[in-house]
């Protein structure tokens, strides 16, 4: 297979341990995958090394990147020092949060805000809730404050005024004045980042965006520099947390939108695979070293959430793929607590030192150690940079730390560790499905990442799922997602309009404006798209309620109008409210709180048949003999198959192990796996 094509697009997902790449030739429908080690702090090296496995970088048409640079900077508090200019009396909004605490039980622990108090200054100004400017901003004071913050060592500046969502005039004037004296481009006002009511959420999002601007900016600069020096002249894009793609120019301005870039790409690919396979209702499970990320896809669509919390007091309010994370991964440590109960996670050995079997200094058993002892992982095969895994050490750790304290034999103890980890993963799946009113019996699990497929069978039983769908390349799902993701830009604006007697023309004009802006940004991204859809959603409620329901509007932007009317909105509201709650409240006035606009540049459909097995594949050729695997309390001889060599239509009965370079699939007894026309493995109960 050749890598030479002017039409090649590469998805690059840089994770903590590996950089995964998916190379795709749109014209020929051919693809290649690659996996190279990541270099923490020098991601560009792994990135370029991965790209060159496909041939000269100069021959690539475009690169789409899912990154965790922003995520890591947020989690490790390694963002830039940020100065804040704000309204008198509101200097501490960022630090006061919404008056929460770290945990329900226990009053210990404090909080360090993303901008320290000495770097938050007040300047005379005040806007009221209805948008009236009560006190015009003192521009000289804004300049003085900006100079002082720069002198104190701040590298980015955020201007956050109370009620700026209702009228951004004071903020914009202050921004212009401060720009005159601010030494760099890392400067923004809150109404430009998130013109939405709720000062803490807006302040937190604006400040976290500012802390990332220098970090993500310089990262992208290094990457673009490295690509340019290798002769790359194509388009370079970044995946956003909402599962859409944006230009690097937008990413520099709104780096906060990369917070869940990597995982979001995976969910996008999962949704596409699920739709193509004819199973539009799936629950994805990405089992990494320390965490298990779960996301629900209903009707082929991933759910978006308006807000997410990175860590205590660090709120990001921007549309993101809804991903629930629990602390259960391959590196999760098993221990017996003081009350004699076995627990697995959330404490994790991560990838360094990693599980006991990695031989890198950890002596407490992990989930991976248990899977190895049970024969579910082949210890003789290389894994990344490790040539083999130390089964004896894993067994000894389980004996000392789990089996003896519980009075069990080692194999029973190892199986117990796996069962408890399964129970925790099942809990996360129940939360995202049942809590939102979805019946798990209609959903298939879609494991991706390296380890998830070992646990799919157990999750089917534990949660009562319909089955599982294992993608052809579970280990590079996020990289594949980069290639197939649409281009997307989201906007939000608090409007606070009563529905009764609505001035529909004025709202329409506003929607045309936000829709045109978003569409222009998508068009500017420069990737080929079939069309650009503009979608609108309103957050609405009955007057007096503080919570809202999301009301999607079935209108679009055409000929400078959306065709909106009071009746259209009321019908949409009643449908959405009725679906969320049992009864409508006739007679109570209805309010439109927020207008949400999304422009989506639809990429040409990715034909997943490109991934299908070769028509020449033969079942016999895929057989790799058998080996004993410990299942339900006994060693059982299990067939071993080379997963990628299985032909379309192959039917395998459990117990069996299906192996490929980036994942191992355990097919429990009582389950049957079939290879579908796209090369996916469909696992159902027999």
């Amino acid at each position, binding site marked *: 297979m050749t890598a030479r094509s002017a039409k090649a697009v590469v998805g690059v997902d840089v994770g903590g341990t590996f950089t995964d790449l998916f190379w795709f030739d749109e014209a020929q429908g051919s693809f290649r995958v690659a996996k190279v080690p990541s270099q923490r702090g020098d991601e560009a090296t792994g990135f370029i090394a991965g790209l060159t496995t496909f041939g000269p970088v100069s021959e690539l048409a475009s690169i789409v990147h899912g990154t965790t640079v922003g995520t890591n900077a947020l989690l490790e508090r390694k963002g830039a020092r940020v100065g804040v200019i704000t309204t008198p009396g509101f200097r501490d909004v960022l630090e006061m949060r919404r008056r929460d605490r770290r945990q329900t039980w226990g009053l210990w622990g404090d909080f360090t805000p993303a901008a320290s108090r000495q770097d938050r200054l007040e300047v005379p100004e005040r806007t009221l809730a209805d948008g009236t400017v009560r006190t015009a901003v003192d521009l000289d004071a804004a300049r003085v404050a900006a100079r002082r913050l720069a002198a104190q060592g701040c590298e980015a500046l955020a201007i956050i005024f109370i009620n700026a969502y209702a009228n951004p005039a004071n903020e914009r004037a202050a921004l212009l004045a401060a720009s005159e004296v601010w030494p760099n481009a890392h400067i923004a006002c809150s109404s430009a980042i998130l013109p939405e009511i709720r000062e*803490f959420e807006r302040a937190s999002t604006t400040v976290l965006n500012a802390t990332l601007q220098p970090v993500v900016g310089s990262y992208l600069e290094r990457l673009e520099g490295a690509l340019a020096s290798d002769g790359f002249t194509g388009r370079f894009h970044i995946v956003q947390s909402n599962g859409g793609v944006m230009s690097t120019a937008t990413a520099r301005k709104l780096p906060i939108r990369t917070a869940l870039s990597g995982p979001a790409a995976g969910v996008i690919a999962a949704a596409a695979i699920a739709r193509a396979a004819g199973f539009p209702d799936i629950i994805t499970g990405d089992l990494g070293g320390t965490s298990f990320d779960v996301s629900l896809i209903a009707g082929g669509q991933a759910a978006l959430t308006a807000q997410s919390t990175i860590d205590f007091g660090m709120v990001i309010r921007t549309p993101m793929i809804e991903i629930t994370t629990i602390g259960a991964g391959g590196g999760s440590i098993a221990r017996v607590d003081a009350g004699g109960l076995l627990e697995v996670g959330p404490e994790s050995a991560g990838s360094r030192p990693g599980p006991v079997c990695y031989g890198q200094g950890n002596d407490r058993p992990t989930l991976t150690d248990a899977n190895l002892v049970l024969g579910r992982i082949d210890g003789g095969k290389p894994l990344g940079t490790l040539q083999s895994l130390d089964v004896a050490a894993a067994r000894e750790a389980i004996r000392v730390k789990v089996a003896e304290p519980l009075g069990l034999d080692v194999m029973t103890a190892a199986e117990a560790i796996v069962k408890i980890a399964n129970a925790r993963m099942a809990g996360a799946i129940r939360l995202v499905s049942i809590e939102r009113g979805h019946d798990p019996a209609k959903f298939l699990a879609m494991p991706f990442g390296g380890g998830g497929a070992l646990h799919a069978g157990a999750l089917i039983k534990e949660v009562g799922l319909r089955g599982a769908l294992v993608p052809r390349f579970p280990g590079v799902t996020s990289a594949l997602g980069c290639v197939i993701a649409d281009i997307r830009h989201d906007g939000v604006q608090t409007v606070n309009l009563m529905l009764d007697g609505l001035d529909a023309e004025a709202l329409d004009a506003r929607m045309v404006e936000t829709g045109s802006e978003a569409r222009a940004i998508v068009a500017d991204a420069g990737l080929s798209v079939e069309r650009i859809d503009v979608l609108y959603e309103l957050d609405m409620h009955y007057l007096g309620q503080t919570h809202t329901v999301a009301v999607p509007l079935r209108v679009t932007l055409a000929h400078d109008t959306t065709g909106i009317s009071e009746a259209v909105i009321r019908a949409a509201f009643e449908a959405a409210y009725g679906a969320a709650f049992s009864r409508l409240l006739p007679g109570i006035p209805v309010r439109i709180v927020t207008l949400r606009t999304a422009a989506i540049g639809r990429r040409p459909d990715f034909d997943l048949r490109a991934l299908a097995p070769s028509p020449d594949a033969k079942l016999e050729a895929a057989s790799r003999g058998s080996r004993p695997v410990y299942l339900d309390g006994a060693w059982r001889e299990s067939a071993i198959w080379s997963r990628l060599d299985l032909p379309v239509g192959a039917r395998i009965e459990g117990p069996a192990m299906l192996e490929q370079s980036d994942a191992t699939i355990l097919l429990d007894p009582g389950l049957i796996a079939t290879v579908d026309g796209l090369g996916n493995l469909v696992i159902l109960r027999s």
Partner: protein
Amino acid sequence: MTALDPVTLAVLKGRLEQIANEMDATLYRSAFNPIIAEAHDACHGLYHATTGDTLVQGTSGLPIFVGAMAFAVRAVIARVEAGAANDPGDTWIFNDPYDGGTHLNDMRLVRPVFRDGKLFCWLASVGHWLDVGGNVPGNFNAKATESFQEGFRIPPVKLVRKGEFQHDIVDILAANSRLPQSNWGDLNGQLNALDLGQQRLDALLDDYGVPTVEAALDAFSARAEALMRAEIAALPDGTFSFDDFLDNDGITDAPLRIALDLTVSGERMTLDFSRSAPPCQGPLNIAYSTAVACCYVALKHIFPHVPANAGVLRPITFVIPNTTLLGASAPKPVGGYTETILRVIDTVFGVFAQIAPQRANGSPYATINALSLAGHRDDGSRFVMFSFFGGGLGGNPESDGLNHGNNPISTATIPPAEILEAAYPVMFTQWALRPDSGGAGRHRGGCGAIYEIEALAESGADVFLLGERGKFPPFGVAGGGPAAMNRFVYDSAEGPTSPPMVTKITDIHIGQGQRVRLESPGGGGYGAPRDRDPDAVRRDVANGYVSPAEAERIYGLAREAAR
């Protein structure tokens, strides 16, 4: 019965907690009232068939309810033991504070779950309804002298009888509330939660069978009890005492003593509150069950890793005579119970600072400051702005106290200033941390807050406040200093004025352009101030948490060194 294997035990623990959590989630989603929907002032769980003991509790509900719900179930069990019928398809409803309740807003639903014709356990749901009648909308009446002025009271009665919904009960409730529609929505949400809990529990029992699940439930309680006993056994034997005070009862300006004598003896503890003040005239009384529930909250904060079920309470004896304001009976008013339970929790913290300083934290700000501004907008429409406000948490062995946290009895968040300004004719002129409000210490107490509010309506606003800690500051522990006290000031013709009851007022009026200012307490400090890292003091001064003058006076930091 044979002991269960550890694996089944762990899996059942997860599944049972999941059931309670799903019940919580169901009510939050379907409630109409933001105090439940957003502030999560609700709770769900599974309770023992004959003792009412808490078996499994949701993890997201309000902490104070976790200890209180067993008493609610016991109130129903007592009715059944006295001869009331108890059938499949029944659901009980009540809010009686003197019979398993807390205050009148907290409406409880209790449902028996039968298996093979035998009572297996109880499911219960509690949620804070917005209005249950009485003299004051929302029911925080600082001047109530009888519970009749606080709202309607319902003893345990059947809302559903063998599956048949008793609409006449709902009609009575609806006729006695200012907000029947909101209550109706919440009631349906609570019923949804019970329905879901029952379905999930049935499925679990189908999977595992009654004997296995029963054995697991016994094992969980035994485990919590064993952990609690082990924790107590590690404490030194002896009797330790701590007294704290409420400012007043809102009627008479005299302090009310809350006194705890805690005796550790081997694996057991006795919490004796006999020396506390007698029942008071105003709404600061609480019932016995509420007092036990808040001790449970205090112990769970001190021992966060002990599981939340009735086993925790087995090694503990309570002495709470009905001659004290902590064992009050009808019709003594209880509407301000939040303040009293916070003080009881403080006495437990105060005692543990003596017994086990390595587990202690300085007192949190420990007042909910229920503040209302009410009046009319310029268009004539009526408004009531009602909220609880935040303050500092105590310094502790691990860290400084959290700035602007919520109270130990709650996990509720505060509405944003922008939401309040958009909804009511008010303007916040300060929403800020309060410097020098955290108690001094090796680990400083967290800062309280300053909220200053200007009335924008032509007709101004009436102001109501039910708070505490205006005369007795949150204390420090292990050598730490006290925090700043609660302070309330309003503009009047005489200039800035503080009310006679310090933290409790009704019937004050401010005019357009006039302001009220609430300065909430910080948290108490932990450890001697002289042991504080000088760099931390310098950071405090640079960030304005501590003024240069106080840094010099308390920490001995020379002013030039602070620069």
